[in-house]
Every structure is written in C-alpha cells, then in structure tokens.
C-alpha cells in the first residue's frame, strides 16, 4: 500500500472519527497519564529529584544486596526503552526480549571469544540489537495498536526459536557460561565494585532516552502518539519516525541486556522468552506509562519483590507478579510514579 493511499485512508478515518466521539476517545486513551513534557514540573523540583535519584543510585549497593542493585539498573534501562515506545510513541512492543536477549548473547559471545573490556562488549551487544531491530521494526510499524503488540511478540518468539536451535553458538539450553568481566585488568569480581563500573553505562542509556524525549524529535513522537493522522498531514513521515524510535529503544534495551549478561556472567534462553518481554511491560505499567522515572521505580519495585519472594522460598512468582499486574491494569493505571507526578502537578 502506497503512502498516498494511506494518507487518503487516514483522512477518511479522521472524518469518520470526528462523528464518533467514542472512537476518538479510544484512540487517545493509549497513554492515559502521559504528560507531554517536563515543562509543568518546576525546575527546582526537577533538580531536587534528579539529585535525589543520583544519591539513591550511588548508595544503592550499600543498602541492598549488590547483585539486586545491578539487576535493578539493568531492568530500569530495559523498561525505559519499552516506555520510549509505549509512553512516548504510542506503540506497545511485546517483543522487546528479542533485543534485550540478542544483546545479552552478543555481549556474552564478544566477552568470551574476544575478551573485550565489558563496556565495549555491551556496546557491541546493543549495536547487534539495533541491527536486528531494522527488519523487525520496519515490518512492525506497518501495524498499530494491538497488532503491533502481536507482531513484535511473534518476531521475538522467532528469535527465541532460532537461538534455541543454533546450539553451536548459543549452547542451547545450557546457555553461555562463565562470561568474563574484563576491564583493563581491574578486579570486578565483587558485585559491589561492578555496580559502580556499570553505573556510567546505565546513566548514559537513561540520558539518551531523556534527551530523545526532550528533543524536537521526541515532540514529534508525542504528536504521532496523540494524533497520527494530523502528524502525517503536517508532513512528518510517521513510519520513519516510528522506526527511528524503535531503533533507539532497541539500542537502549540492548545496553540493559548486555549489562545483564556481564552482571550474571551467564546467558540463558530465558532472556529471549516472551515472559521477559512481558516483565518489561509490567515494570513500565507499574511504574507509570509515559514517565521516565516510572520505569526506574517500577524496576526497583519488581526486582526487589522477586528477590524477596525467591529469598522466602516462594516458587510460583507468576502468581504474585500476575496478580499485581492485573490489579495495576484494573485500578492503578497511572502507576507508582505516574500517580506521584499527577499529584505534584495538581498542586499550585
């Protein structure tokens, strides 16, 4: 279908939609609590929050088991990447495990076979994910809404099957074992020190997404989310913008996945499974769709909870995470951070 035909169809849909308020409201409800930018929050508050976040990030492994702190950081990157699409572009990817997992494998392989310093291996892994995201994104942005979710989910499952069968590279069900943690001969075997070595990469990834959202490019993404037909009418190539956001998101998720591989020194097929994609979406919704701190807070909450559950010897984690997720979707759709942001914004 040519771009022209789509434009015509889009124009038609606007004309119809204007007469059916219900359909318009539905289209708008994609990201319920999503603010359009940070302008409403006063600067002093923003700086206070950022300062507090930096402080928390710095003392996290002191107060917490360092392995958990590393996990929180990795999942935060992953969730922020998913939120860049879900909260700011209006696309729900249910297949981001493909990028998180591909980066984990690529990072692990680069570290094992080439002995690269870990930041370089992670960067390589993230680039591998970005390359994979080109064909997947190109095909997926042809659909919207629920179809986009199903298409990304299906492609991620395809990557899962390929990794499962390609045993000579991925070691199949055994996974990649003993992934080295190399950084110019420094001893990073202690999780406590590794956390601080990994922190700049996490901060870089978060900054990348923050910068994207607060750039003219990010404003176009929000415009596309809120009214794709109008964005197209204004002359923005909607498909190309969506694809660019998809690649950025895959890169950021890849940074998280690569760090996850180095942090655990082990890559298993789980990193590619659809439950992993689902967990990232859970984190975003629980934290607050369309906020940048939300996914970070959500990551801390979910990771901490799972750690606590497994420490308590509770095996069926899905019962708890599934229930929390269903309840969040039913009655707490703004999420943790979204609720706080909403509350702050209502103050004069």
């Amino acid at each position, binding site marked *: 279908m040519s771009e022209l035909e789509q434009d015509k169809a889009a124009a038609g849909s606007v004309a119809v939609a204007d007469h059916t308020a219900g359909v318009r409201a539905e289209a708008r409800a994609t990201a319920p609590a999503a603010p359009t930018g940070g302008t409403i929050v006063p600067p002093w508050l923003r700086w206070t929050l950022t300062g507090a976040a930096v402080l928390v990030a710095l003392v996290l492994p002191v107060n917490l088991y360092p392995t958990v702190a590393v996990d929180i950081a990795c999942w935060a990157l992953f969730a922020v990447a998913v939120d860049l699409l879900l909260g700011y572009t209006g696309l729900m990817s249910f297949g981001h495990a493909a990028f998180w997992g591909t980066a984990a494998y690529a990072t692990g392989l680069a570290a094992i076979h080439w002995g690269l310093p870990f930041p370089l291996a992670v960067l390589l892994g993230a680039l591998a994910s970005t390359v994979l995201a080109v064909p997947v994104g190109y095909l997926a942005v042809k659909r919207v809404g629920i179809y986009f979710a199903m298409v990304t989910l299906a492609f991620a*499952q395809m990557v899962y099957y390929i990794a499962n069968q390609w045993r000579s590279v991925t070691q199949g069900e055994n996974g990649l074992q003993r992934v080295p943690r190399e950084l110019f001969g420094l001893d990073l075997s202690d999780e406590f020190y590794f956390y601080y070595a990994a922190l700049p990469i996490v901060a870089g990834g978060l900054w990348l997404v923050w910068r994207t959202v607060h750039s003219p490019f990010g404003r176009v993404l929000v415009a596309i989310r809120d009214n794709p037909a109008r964005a197209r009418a204004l002359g923005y190539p909607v498909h190309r913008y969506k694809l660019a956001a998809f690649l950025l998101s895959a890169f950021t998720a890849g940074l998280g996945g690569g760090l996850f591989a180095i942090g655990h020194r082990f890559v298993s097929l789980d990193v590619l499974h659809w439950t992993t994609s689902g967990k990232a979406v859970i984190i975003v919704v629980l934290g607050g769709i369309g906020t940048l701190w939300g996914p970070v807070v959500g990551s801390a909450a979910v990771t901490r909870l799972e750690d606590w559950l497994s420490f308590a010897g509770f095996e069926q984690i899905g019962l708890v995470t599934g229930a929390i997720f269903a309840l969040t979707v039913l009655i707490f759709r703004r999420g943790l951070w979204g609720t706080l942001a909403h509350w702050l914004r209502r103050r004069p």
Partner: protein
Amino acid sequence: MVNFLQHTFNGLVGGAFLALLALGLAVIFGMLRVVNFAHGAIYMLGAFGAYVLLTEVGLSFWWALLVMPIALALFGMALERLLVARLARLDPLYNFLLTFGLTLILQDAVKSRYGVQSSPYDAPAILSGTLDLGAFDFPAYRVFVLVMAVAVCVGVWWLLSRTRVGMVVRAATERPELSTALGIDVGRWVTPVFGFGIGLAGLAGVLAAPIRAVNPLMGADLIIVVFAVVVIGGLGSIFGSVAAGFAIGLVQAWVQALGEDWALLSQVLVFLVMAGVLLWRPAGLFGREEAPA
C-alpha cells in the same frame, strides 16, 4: 505418495488446533475488540481439566469433552463480567495486558499444584485403533479430532451467517454504534460471545489432551503461534483466521516431513509467512484495512 498423504493428514490435525484457537480469538475480538492473551492458558486448562476429571473424579474423556468447554465458558463469562468489562471503554491494549497477567496466574496456579512434568492421558478405547482407508492407516483419534474441528468451524459459520443471533453478532462486530442506534441490544451479547470463544479454546484443550503433552506450559508458546496465525488471516476475519490455521498446520507438517535439519524452519515458518503477509497485505490475507494510525 503415501507418506505425503500421511503428512498432509497430520498437518490438517495440527492445523485443526490452530484453527479452533484462532476461531475463538477472532470471535472474541470481533465482538469485544479484546485480544485474549489467556487463550493459550485456557487451552491448557481444558487439557488439564480433562486429566483431573479422569484421575481425580473418574469421568471419562467423553464427559470431559462435554463438561470442560461448558465449565470454561462459564468461567470466561464470569471473567468478562468481573474484569474484562471494566476495561472495555479503554484502549484494547489494557485488556491485552490484563489477560497477560491472568495467563501468569493461571499457569503458575496449575504449576504449583501439579508441577511442570507432563501427565499422560490416553485416548478413549473406542478411538485407540487405526482406520484403514486404503492408502494408509489413520489413527482413529486423530480422524476424530479433525472431524470435530471441521464440524465446529462449520457450526460456527452456520450460527453466524444463518441465525438471528449470528446476524446480531455480525452487525455488532461491524458497526457497533449503528447497531445500537438501530435498537439492537449489543451489550447483551458481549458476555455470551466471550464465554463462547473461551469455550472453544477449552474444547481444543480437551481434544489435545490425548495427543499433546499435558503440562502447565502447553499453551504458553502455542498462543504466540496462534497470534501469528490471526495476523496472517486478518484478525477481524473469522473465515481468514480458520483458513490460516489449517494452512499453517499443513505447511508446518510438510516442512517437518523433510527431516531433522528442517526442524527450525518448521518452527519459524509461521513467523516468516507473517512477515511476508505484512509486506504484501498488512491487514492480513482476509482482513480489511483498519484506519491507519
């Protein structure tokens, strides 16, 4: 040639499950605009229910075939009333997420009670033999599955196209606001249709129990293949979903027949076909273009 026939037959049986699941998904989507992620988990519950009825209650396969779809349909109706309906006015993605959460709960609930190992379940004695139809011996149970699936698909087609109920459902599917404006009580049919779709998934599960490994994760990966099937067929199109289900089952079986080396291709084939369909006809083979956005 005999081999080819055999693979074709097996492909049709595999396709029958995909078609039944895709049919339920499409019926629910048509009426509610909800993509039910828990469809695979319901299929698992159908199979597990049959197993539990046999081992703990002593009810045979035939009873399970009757009881489980009805019980799950009622469960589905309760689910719709209590949870799904609350999100009906929001973006359909929320119900997708809700049913994803339910999937995790259902799977882990069964897992915590019965573990992850597969439970054996035998086909009923009367269907345990083979049918000699000249060319080769057809396992009688698989023939039964195929006949059942085709009968159900034809039955649903008849319901939708030849009865008053079907007319209402089709009208509500295509033009919900207009149907309401014409005085048709669309809301009355939402819950029964949801239950009906869930019942179909339960039926597929009971049918699958004797030939697929019965375990808590049996629907987990299958649901994603079914998603790909409905994207290929066009989720809005009930005929397209069923046809794509059978077609994918067939092609998978043919590729599988080529040998061990082709195992990966037979697994990812459905996704490659989906990619091709997205390039060529993004709305699906039988789907209508929804408003692009």
